[in-house]
């Protein structure tokens, strides 16, 4: 078992002919992901690396290859459209890697997606990986190891740090999900925690948050009410100055809202084990699992 993706996932890549799209499509394929199709308008009929068929539209690709997940590398100005195209073609899992999509576009896309049953991860995220089975995204595959720790995070590199520490403790991961750093995105921290909690192969959950918004607080409420598995957390930005966007479009303290302190307090209240600093996540997880 795992969350959202496994060895049967059939991936198509929107923007497969671009620089990042082709690089990462290739890396996912190498990792063992079934990359079944690519989509780039006006490039239909070509083949990616002589094996993966490229289509003009997502619906053609789905009809021909039964793809059920999409990874999006389309440039920001067209990425909102690409997400909607994937949803409309019946794709069940949409992973939007693209960084820099206008907020107004994501606002409309998120509302439109309410009509569909699909799950959107991202945008501006590293993606999702079930180690040893399926990698959809830009994370370095080799740092992961199959295991029982579920990881969810708003930041790419912090996920890698956490994963690396978990692997270095001799442990492994069930599924790792990066929900992305934009203020408006698909899958929330809470929803990801719900998935990991429901997964019988996940024995402990690591949740990495950062300043801005209130998703950590919402997840904390859910954890307090429902989650029986041990949860370890780390929140970045405890010393970030208010009013400045810390790299991620969504990482900003505005009007006194979204501080790390408020998030840490909410999580502690929910019984979550807080890592003292970034370097302590692996150790906390090992302790939580009694290793």
């Amino acid at each position, binding site marked *: 078992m795992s969350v959202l993706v496994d060895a049967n996932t059939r991936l198509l890549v929107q923007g497969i002919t671009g620089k990042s799209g082709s690089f990462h499509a290739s890396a996912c394929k190498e990792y063992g992901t079934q990359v079944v199709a690519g989509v780039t308008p006006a490039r239909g009929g070509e083949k990616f690396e002589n094996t993966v068929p490229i289509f003009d539209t997502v619906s053609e690709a789905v009809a021909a290859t039964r793809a059920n997940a999409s990874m999006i590398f389309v440039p920001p100005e067209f990425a909102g459209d690409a997400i909607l195209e994937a949803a409309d073609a019946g794709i069940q899992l949409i992973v939007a890697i693209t960084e820099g999509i206008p907020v107004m576009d994501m606002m409309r896309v998120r509302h439109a997606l309410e009509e569909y049953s699909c799950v959107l991860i991202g945008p501006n995220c590293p993606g999702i990986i079930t180690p040893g089975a399926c990698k959809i995204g830009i994370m370095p595959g080799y740092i992961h190891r199959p295991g029982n720790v579920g990881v969810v995070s708003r930041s*790419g*590199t912090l996920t*890698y740090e956490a994963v690396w520490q978990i692997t270095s403790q001799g442990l492994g991961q069930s599924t790792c999900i990066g929900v992305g750093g934009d203020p408006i995105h698909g899958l929330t921290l809470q929803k990801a925690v719900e998935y990991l909690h429901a997964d019988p192969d996940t024995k402990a959950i690591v949740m990495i948050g950062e300043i801005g918004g209130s998703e950590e607080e919402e997840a904390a409420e859910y954890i307090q009410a429902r989650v029986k598995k041990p949860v370890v957390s*780390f929140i970045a930005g*405890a010393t970030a100055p208010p009013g400045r966007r810390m790299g991620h479009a969504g990482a900003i303290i505005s*009007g006194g809202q979204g501080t790390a302190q408020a998030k840490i307090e909410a999580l502690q209240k929910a019984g979550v084990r807080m890592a003292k*600093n970034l370097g302590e996540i692996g150790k906390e997880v090992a302790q939580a699992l009694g290793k």
Partner: protein
Amino acid sequence: MNIHEYQARDLLSASGVAIPRGAVAKTPEEAEAIARSLPCNSFVVKAQVHAGGRGKGHFVDGYKSGVHLVKTPHQVRDVAQHMIGNTLITHQTGPEGKPVHSVLVGESTEIARELYLAIVLDRSSGCPVIVASQQGGMEIEAVAEKNPEAILREVIHPGLGLQPYQARKVSIFLGFPSTGLRAPCRLLHAAYRLFIEKDCSQVEINPLAVTKGGDVVALDAKLNFDDNALFRHKEIQDLQDPSQEDPRDLAAAEHHLNYIGLEGNIGCMVNGAGLAMATLDLIQAAGGKPANFLDVGGGASEAMITAAFRLLQADASVKAVFVNIFGGILKCDLLAQGMIAACKSNPPRVPIIVRLQGTNVEQGRKLLKESGLPLIPAEGLMEGAEKAVAAATGKKGK
């Protein structure tokens, strides 16, 4: 992205939001001429800088306040003379202040009521939300804290946009009589249109004034724009005023580096926004103060790393540099090559602490070791931060 008050006025006015009469002046003579053209006998002169708190601020030469009320065009000229070319310090500018290159000269309005109106993005619902309060002229955060029921939050459906009933609801909450809703509703629709059309992240009108004559006008306004959407708004990009930005931020933007200048003395170079933020936390936990936030990105090129390094070296306040990299897509050996190239062309003047982890870490560490550069290696995160703090304070790292 931020713009000046006078630019915000122009945008609001073009969208149909009423504003008091006035114009921007770059010289005292222009200021006087504008005042003479206004049919009124009291004027307001406001220093144009990208910061709030101007009224309570002061200039570097001791001249008080960035907002003056005067009676004659001659006095307007006098105030403008003091302000233009001067530097204004407010609680938002930092101790160095912001240069004033222009002033806004306007009619002083006789105000009956001061209201608050803003349109912002509500993250949890993913919708625009109108924030309204009858307690205008003060910071909305203070109102929210003391008197939350004095604030109305009206969520707008992004597909449908602002509906007439919502505009009426907000107007009534703001205390307009049911027979006098036309002017406030028209203003709300105009402000909402501006928010959507220009990809604003915030339209804040504070105060929104009801004049003694019964007009509804935006007395002061702040507009912010979504940086991600600037590609489709050249007209907004053109409003940028580099004199109001931190020169370090401008240099970083030129190289597409994600940089924020801070007040401390430890320069940071990190890949990934989350890790960069966590690195600032580590430095402070170790007892130091970071000089900047700098994310070179997941796929930084050698040229970007060189540029990032130059930027840190050029910052006189930097006493030590902490390079913290988790090599995912960005391979550690590539990073090492970039650092070596940068150090060769621009020999380091401060100690550099390097913590590398991830893809090709052994090759990266080896390259750095063999480079002969005076770099201080660290393996652990906290270890790196502690070494950086020790180096910045002049103590020898272990």
